[in-house]
C-alpha cells in the first residue's frame, strides 16, 4: 500500500491522526496533515483505509497495488 496526502485539501480535522498516529501527524501551526510513513506496514492497512474513508476532505489517497 502506498499513501499520499493532499495538504491543500486537508481541513485539519485530525481524524487520521486519531486512528493511525504511526502514519499521520499534524503540523503544529495549522493542524494540516503530515505523512509520517508512505508505505505503512501491513498490520496498519485496515486502519489507514478507515482513515482515508473518514477523512472529511478526501485528502488521503491510497494505491493498493504498490
Amino acid at each position, binding site marked *: 500500500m502506498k499513501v499520499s496526502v493532499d495538504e491543500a*485539501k486537508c*481541513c*485539519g*480535522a*485530525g*481524524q487520521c*491522526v*486519531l*486512528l493511525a*498516529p504511526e502514519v499521520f*501527524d*499534524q503540523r*503544529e*501551526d*495549522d*493542524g*494540516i496533515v503530515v505523512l509520517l510513513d508512505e508505505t505503512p506496514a501491513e498490520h496498519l492497512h485496515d486502519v489507514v483505509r*478507515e482513515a482515508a*474513508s*473518514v477523512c*472529511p*476532505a*478526501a485528502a488521503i489517497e491510497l494505491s493498493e497495488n504498490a
Partner: protein
Amino acid sequence: MTSTVNSAAASPAETPEFPMARAAKCPFDPPPALRALQQEGPLTRVRLWDGSTPWLVTRYVEQRTLLADPRVSADITRPGYPSSAPINPEQVGIGFILMDDPEHARLRRMVAAPFTIKRIQAMRPGVQRIVDELIDQMLAGPKPVDLVEAFALPVPSLVICQLLGVPYADHDFFQANSKVMINREATPEERAAASRNLHGYLDNLMGEKLRDPGADLLSGLAERIKAGELTQRDAASMGVLLLIAGHETTANMIALGTLTLLEHPDQLALLRDSDDPKLVAGAVEELLRYLNITHSGRRRVALADIEIAGQVIRAGEGLIFPNDIGNRDPEVFDDPDRLDIQRDARRHVAFGFGVHQCLGQPLARMELQVVYSTLYRRIPTLRLAAELDQIPFKHDAAVYGVYALPVTW
C-alpha cells in the same frame, strides 16, 4: 435517465414542512417523519418557514457525497441558501463556518493549532482536574441538583475559556447571549441583539489581547491583526464562533448523554464497570451518533447542476442535511435505533462532513471521554430526580439537549 420533475412545485400542499417534530415518547430519536422520508428515497423536497422548497438529503451516503462536493457552498449570503430563520442584514456573521474556500480555509487554519490531537491530549489532565473538582462540589452540596447548571455547562465553558483566553467570570453573560443566538424561536431582533452583545464583548477582549497578549488563542489572533492578516472585526467573529461552539455543543452532549445512559441502565453499567479507554472512546462515538445534537440540519446551496441518485439538483437550489437521520441509516448502521456503546460507530456524521467538519472535534471527544469515564464511576448511584416527561428538552434550539436535568444519588 435523470428526472427533472419537481414534484414539490407541482403540488405544494404535499411538500412536508421542515423542521419536523420528534415523537413525544421518543426524545432520543429523530422525528418519525424524517425516518419515513429516508425510507422513500435519499432526496426529497421540503418546505421551510419562508415557503422555499430546498432539497432534504436523508441518507448517509448522499449526505457524505454532497457535503464533500466542492460545488456545494456554505455561503449564507448566496441566493437559494436555505436559512433556518430570517437573516437580519445588520446581524454580523459568525465567521468561517458560513464561508467557502479559499477564505474559509485561510481563516480556519489560523485557529487550528490548539485543536490538534497532540495539543488536545496535553490538555487532558487539566480537564480531568476540572471534572473532579466539579464532582467534589456537587457531592458536597445539596441534592437534588441540576446537572446542567452544576456540571454540564461549567466543564466545557471552563475549558474553552482557558483555551481562548476569555475570563470565566463572564460565563453568565456569554451563556445567556449564546442561548438566544441559537434559539429558533427567538425573533431576528433578539438574535441580532445577542449577536451584537457577543461581538462587542469579543471585540473589546481582542483590544485587551492586542495591548497585553498571553499564550491563548485570542492572543494568537491579535498577532495576526498586528501582521495585517486579519481585521479586529473578523477576529472577534471567530472568537464568538469558537466560544459558542466550544461550550453549547459539549454541554448538551454531557447532559443529554447522561440522561440517555440513565434511561439505558445496561449500557450505563457497561461504561461504569469498565476502565478500558477503548470502550469509553467507543461509547463517546456511539452517543455522538445516536444523539446527533446538531438537529437543525447542515445547510448548503448548489453552485452548479449536480446529478445524484437519479435527480438533478439545480445551481442555486438549497440543500439541507439532517445528520441525525443520516446517523440512523440502516444501510450503514445495523439496528440503528438501538444504543449500543460496543458497536463501531466511528463513521458517524455527527460532526458533519466535508471541509467544514467540526474543527473542535478532538476537544469534544476528549472532554466527553473524561466526563463519561469519571461521572458515573464517582457517583455510581446517580439517578433522575424527576420523571422523564418532566424534563425540558430543547426542541426549539438549533442544538438539541435539555434545559435542566434534576439528578440525585
